[in-house]
C-alpha cells in the first residue's frame, strides 16, 4: 500500500502518527481518505475549496506533484507521498 509521510506540524492532529498507509489508487483519493481518518487535519491541509494549501507542497518520491490539477495521479504499492509544509523556526 502507498504511504503518506505526515509532517511534524500535522502530527498533533493524527494522534502523533508519522505515517498513513492507504489502499487508494490515486493521490486525490488517498488525501481524501487521510482527512476522513483524521478530520482535524482537513482545515490545516486543505483550503475552503478542498485544494492543498499554498504553503504546503506534496511530493511523490523526490518530485513535486500538484494534487489540485487533477485526480489522476496514480499511486502504486510502494509510492511514498511526502507532505511538506513551510516551517519558519530557527530560534
Amino acid at each position: 500500500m502507498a504511504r503518506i509521510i505526515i509532517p511534524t506540524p500535522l502530527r498533533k492532529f493524527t494522534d502523533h502518527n508519522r505515517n498513513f498507509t492507504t489502499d487508494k489508487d490515486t493521490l486525490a483519493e488517498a488525501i481524501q481518505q487521510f482527512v476522513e481518518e483524521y478530520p482535524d487535519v482537513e482545515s490545516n491541509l486543505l483550503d475552503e475549496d478542498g485544494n492543498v494549501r499554498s504553503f504546503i507542497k506534496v511530493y511523490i518520491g523526490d518530485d513535486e506533484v500538484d494534487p489540485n490539477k487533477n485526480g489522476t495521479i496514480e499511486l502504486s504499492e510502494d509510492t511514498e507521498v511526502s507532505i511538506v509544509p513551510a516551517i519558519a523556526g530557527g530560534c
Partner: protein
Amino acid sequence: MTNWENVEFSSKELGHYSRHLSIPEFGMEGQKKLKAAKVLAVGTGGLGAPMLQYLAAAGVGTIGLVDFDVIEASNLHRQVLFGASDVGRPKVEVAKERLQEINPHITINVHETRLTSDNALEIIEDYDVVADGTDNFPTRYLINDACVMLDKPNVHGSIFQFEGQVSVFNYVDQDGERGPNYRDLFPEPPPPGLVPSCAEAGVLGVLPGIIGCIQASEVIKVITGIGEPLAGKLFLFDALNFSTRTVKVKKNKDNPLVGEDPEITELIDYQEFCGLPSINGEQEEETESEVPEVSVKEYKSWIDRGEDVQLIDVRKPYEAEIAEIGGELIPLDDILDKADKIDRNKKVVVHCRSGQRSSDAIKKLQEKYGFDNLYNLKGGILAWSEEIDESVPQY
C-alpha cells in the same frame, strides 16, 4: 568570492587551518576563498549558534551577525554559544566574544538590530552569502527578496519540534544558471497562527545543532565551489525516526520576483504580506491595549490589601508545570467552554506567559459572554518573575 588569489596567511593561521589544507579538493585555494568571504548570519539563536561556531572555526574571513535579542534562560538548551551567566546580555555581543575566542584571525561585524525592509538591502549588500537562521515568516520572505534583488545566495535552514529543512536559494551555478528561491518553493506563508513558533510548540534542543551544522556546510560549499550545493533541492530531516529526504525545488513561472510577470521590484511590508500587524502597530497596541490591564505590581497590591480576586491561567498544562503563580488553569482553547468557572461578581485577573494569550482570552470572553470584570496581567508570568518573585522560573 572576489580577490581571493592574493590572500595570505600567518603561520598561526596555517596551523589553525592545517586539516583543511590537507584535503586535496579543498587545499589552499579553498581556505583563501573562505578568508576572502563575507557571510551574514541573520539570527544568532538555535540555528545561528552552531552554524556560526563552525563558520568561525573554518576561517570565514568576515562574519556579520544580525540580531536584536537578548539571551534568555529558555535559549540555553539549544543556543550553545551562550551560557547561564550570559542571560540578559545582547546575543550579538556574546556571540562576537565567543567567536573571536574560537578564531581570533577573523573579523566579526555586529548589527544589533531587527532586519527590516528599511535596512535589509544596506546590510546585506556588503556580504557574499546570507545564512537565514531567523524564526519567523516575514523575515524569511524579506531575506529571500533582498537576496534576489542583490544577487546573493541564501542558505536557508528552518526547524519545527523534531523536523528540519535546508536549501540553498538563488544560487548561480558554474554555468551561470540561477536556481530557485524561497518563493518558488512556498509562494505564500501560512495564515498567522497555523504554524506555531518554537516558543509555542517547543523544539528538540539538538535539532537546530544538526540543521545549523548542515547550513554551515552548505555555506562553505557555496564559498569554495566544492561539491554540489543544495540548490534546486530541499533537504528534510526528521530526528524522531532519523529519516532524511531530499526533494526537488522547481522554479515557478508565477514567482512574483523572477517569474514571467514580476510584480515585486522593491522590498514590501512583510508583516502585512504574512497577515501580521506591523512592528510599529504592535508597539502602539502595547500602549493602547484593547482590553483592561493590570500591572503585576498593582495586582500584587490588590492581593496584599486582601481584595477578593480570582486569577485565571490560560496557558497549557505543561507550562503550569514549569512555573505557576496560583492561577486556576483553563487553557485558552477551552476558555469559552469553561466560562462558567469565571466569577462575574469580582475582579478576575487573566494571565499567560507574556500577556498575549490572556488578552486574546479576554477578548473572546467579552465578545461571546459580555464579561466586564476581566483584567489582563500585563507582561504575564514573565513580568511577575522579573518584578515580584524571581523564584518563579522564566521559560
